[in-house]
């Protein structure tokens, strides 16, 4: 009995230690963002704020300088929202249509096409930067929110297609045949049968795409225009804009603002995420 207790104690001790280790940076960010400039300067990283204040948060949001302009992260935040929401929805929808075709309406060469699409998943993003900006230029949407959106949609299609295709392979083919005999068309089968059965994979893909596109910096810094920069670029500019004193509390608040939406999505839909990742084992 005692030995088991000791065992448990050691185990819990180690786990707690690791949890502290990983949570420490978050803790430092949160407390620092709530401290005033004087307390930050005093240098004690781990101490609690003596006079908690949200002034760094409001500064980071609306008045901090990001280069010449001093409007905080707010405009970048809305740029990101404006760009991320449609990009996530469109890339997810296209992925599910692709997956539906590649698994249930196979045609000559569809497997090869899928194999080529897989290249897109593993291709380093840097490779496409030049050709992509060329294409955006031809299309006349370079340096705009539309261009950035288009890049994210195209870049997202391989992985969304992969997710949906692998999920739909598990749906029985007879379901599709039964619907065909019932008289349903390609799109009727998609909207009435396939999509209602896709909840787990839809959630996984939405979270995946949201996180990827929201956190993207490379495409954001390369393809956005002056007034369409996403929040990651804004955060970078904010942290790199040098004034006489480094405002760590404002930097921390800004970083937290940039991270909150993805954090929020994980908290709300996290359990579906895990469920969706393991849903392959469950029959439709």
């Amino acid at each position, binding site marked *: 009995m005692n030995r088991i207790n000791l065992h448990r104690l050691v185990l819990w001790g180690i786990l707690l230690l690791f949890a502290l280790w990983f949570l420490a940076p978050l803790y430092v960010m949160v407390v620092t963002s709530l401290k005033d400039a004087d307390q930050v300067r005093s240098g004690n990283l781990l101490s609690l704020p003596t006079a908690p204040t949200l002034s760094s948060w409001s500064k980071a949001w609306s008045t901090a300088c990001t280069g010449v302009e001093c409007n905080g992260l707010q405009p970048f935040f809305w740029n990101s929202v404006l760009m991320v929401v449609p990009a996530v929805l469109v890339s997810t929808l296209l992925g599910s249509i692709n997956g539906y075709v590649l698994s249930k309406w196979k045609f000559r060469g569809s497997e090869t096409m899928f194999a080529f699409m897989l290249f897109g998943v593993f291709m380093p993003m840097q490779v496409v930067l030049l050709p992509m900006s060329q294409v955006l230029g031809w299309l006349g949407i370079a340096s705009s929110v539309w261009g950035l959106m288009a890049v994210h949609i195209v870049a997202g299609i391989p992985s969304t297609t992969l997710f949906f295709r692998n999920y739909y392979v598990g749906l029985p083919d*007879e*379901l599709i045949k*039964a619907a*065909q*005999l*019932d008289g*349903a068309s390609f799109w009727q089968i998609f909207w009435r049968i396939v999509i209602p059965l896709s909840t787990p994979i839809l959630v996984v893909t939405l979270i995946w795409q949201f996180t990827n596109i929201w956190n993207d910096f490379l495409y954001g810094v390369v393809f956005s225009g002056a007034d369409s920069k996403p929040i990651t670029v804004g955060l970078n500019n904010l942290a790199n804009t040098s004034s006489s004193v480094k405002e760590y509390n404002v930097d921390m608040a800004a970083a937290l603002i940039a991270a909150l939406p993805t954090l929020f999505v994980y908290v709300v839909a996290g359990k579906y995420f895990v469920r969706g990742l393991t849903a392959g084992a469950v029959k439709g």
Partner: protein
Amino acid sequence: MGALSIQGIHKTFNQTTHILKGIDLEIEAGEFLILVGPSGCGKSTLLNMIAGLDHPTSGNILIGDRDVTYLPSKDRDIAMVFQSYALYPNMSVAQNIAFGLEIRKVPKAEREAAVQRVAAMLQIGHLLDRKPGQLSGGQRQRVAMGRALARDPKLFLFDEPLSNLDAKLRVEMRAEIKQLHQRTKTTTVYVTHDQVEAMTLGDRIAVMKDGLVQQFGTPAEIYTRPANRFVAEFIGSPAMNMVDVQSTGHGVNAQGVALQLADAQRAAAAQHSANDLVYGLRPEAISFADQGVPGQLSMIEPTGPETYATVDTAVGKLTARVPGVLHARVGETVHLQWSADQAHLFDRASGMRVG
């Protein structure tokens, strides 16, 4: 013109793999056609073509007097019950049954009437609000049949519908399918690999193997006059006893033992070009007697109502199927008898029936 005619259907993949090699079948309205055969014989491919889910390389399929060979499934006025039932998991039983009607834009009141009619017929009224996931295997089977019945189609297709059920339920559902057919009189095509289902359900049976119809006839014809050795051995359990024999011109003998033949068969054997023949005998044709072919009992399998007995004789192993309990012991010497007109003769090289 029949309710369904299949004319010269060929199916070839990559110009080298021949799945179907010329299928001709025709049935009348209201008939129950069974496609039976071992796996890989092409029966499911043929059914898929009738359903419009696959297309032949050449040949024609007519439903009524309409050529539907290349018509999409939805325009064929058919309904199908799948092996896995293929119920839509996201819809309730009632929605499943009504889906086909809804897609065809049938008014709501009519749809509900159809659901009620079908539910009453299959006794699934209390299940209408449930999802397929909440149903047992037998109930899913009923709902799948209900979905097919709702549209009142011209042709019913069944693709091995009972193979996912346990033995007891299978017998029950088999009887229900038969009763349903007797009541609705809808022309039906039913694919199975189970020869008992084939015999009990079919008005006409097409026994298939290697992409060809081996025999097409009523269950009685197929059982009593199998067209070739394959059909003889495929239909019936335990399988027909087969003994290699030589034609002597005025009869046949195996290992020097003369085996009885009816007069007509003796004449046919005498006229047949080849002397190497196979002598077939159904297990139930053999009985134990005081005289006849002697042999040693090597195995006894009681099933309850009847007993299968395997006997080593001079002509080879013979299985007899006798009613009730066999009062004998393994190792005993017994004598087997049968009447001459129970024998079947086949050509050993081609497998075709002689006489």
